[in-house]
């Protein structure tokens, strides 16, 4: 990924795939993040590694406004600071026990992260609504030169947000015409499966319209 990505918003998940009080692994060009939403709905992106023993925090769980590690229950707030160590309930965790945190925002049903807070908000993608995130076993550069792709899926206008996640894996967040019906969305979802098969079969296909 080009260096300038560090100050750009990167789409990592769809809002509908992250309900309140859940955590998911978000694959980005620079690694995996633990992306979580608190019980009250607040969004946070932390490095996917517990500072205690290195367990993936995305395997953990969200209770209230904190993310807890599945291994020993150490819990972290939205700034990544360790708040509580269950085996030492009376200890105030030292400030050094902190998971790196990233800027995270959602707009029009898409969750974006950035290493440093960009000056402008993530794009609105007006006229589209999120359909699904799909992982493709092909290099993003080969699929689309890492650019977003405008195409039609089963006749429905679609916009694919393409994110190379290292190696030969690419995540495509599929947006479709905001006016698409349920039946059209199902058809577009099936067509996205076919698009993935094409990408993986050919390695490279010029799909931009």
């Amino acid at each position, binding site marked *: 990924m080009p260096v300038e990505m560090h100050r750009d918003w990167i789409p990592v*998940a*769809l809002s*509908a*795939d992250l*309900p309140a*009080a*859940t955590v*998911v*692994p978000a*694959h980005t060009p620079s690694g*995996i993040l633990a992306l979580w939403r608190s019980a009250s709905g607040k969004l946070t992106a932390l490095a996917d590694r517990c500072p205690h023993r290195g367990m993936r925090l995305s395997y953990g*769980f*969200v*209770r*209230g406004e904190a993310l*807890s590690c*599945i291994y*020993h*229950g150490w819990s972290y707030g939205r700034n990544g600071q360790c708040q509580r*160590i*269950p*085996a*030492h*309930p*009376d200890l105030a965790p030292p400030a050094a026990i902190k998971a790196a945190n990233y800027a995270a925002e959602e707009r029009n049903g898409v969750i974006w992260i950035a290493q440093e807070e960009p000056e402008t908000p993530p794009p609105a993608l007006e006229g589209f609504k999120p*359909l*699904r*995130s*799909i*992982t493709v076993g092909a290099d993003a550069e080969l699929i689309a030169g890492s650019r977003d792709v405008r195409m039609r899926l089963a006749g429905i206008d679609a916009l694919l947000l393409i994110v190379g996640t290292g190696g030969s894996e690419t*995540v495509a967040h599929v947006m479709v015409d905001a006016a698409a019906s*349920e039946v059209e*969305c*199902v058809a577009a*979802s*099936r067509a996205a*499966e076919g698009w993935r098969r094409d990408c993986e079969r050919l390695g490279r296909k010029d799909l931009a319209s």
Partner: protein
Amino acid sequence: MILYDYILSPDAYKVRLMAALAGVKLNLRAVDVHPGREHESEPLRALNPAGSIPILLDGDLILTESAAMLVYLARLEAPTWLGDDNAANAARVQQWLAFSRRLTDHLGGARATEMLSEPGDLPALQRAGTLDLRELEAALTERRILGQTFLASDRPTVADIACFPYVALAPDGGVSLDPYPSIRLWTRAIRMLPGFIEMPGIHRLHELKPEPLSTETPETV
């Protein structure tokens, strides 16, 4: 009702889980699969010539296929779990019960090879298991578009229980579940069901219980 059981067997866990959800009491007989290979012993071969676990006994009835056991438990005590309220849903249940066999072969095969050192072509099993997960993810995504959570009906059925364990344990076979948001939400919905029980590698949702009080005796770090 007697279940010849092995704690690490996902197929045996399906039956324990269904029984717990349906409120059926099972008489568990632990079988020394590893290292004893007791499932291949003559007394158990007499019950199940295939030498596989689990085996369910109820009077004269001997069942050796986990999908049949799920149907039996549901039909006895929790018939809504059969999901056979209309022709399409009944067929969907059968579709996923048959599909669950592929999960056993592929993801279960990868797990047995990777974790239990059984013979097998690990990369081929992982590739086949990944195709199964993609098929399941696509189906669950379509269900979500239609406002549904479970595989075959507007409520959980034996189809969900048949598919759940090998999917949840896919990482044991070196197959990541990271790329599947709809599978993640579906496994969460199953783990939220009242009466849900665990097996090694499939834990309950800790967040459903309140935070332990700091006055309680802490667990060892």
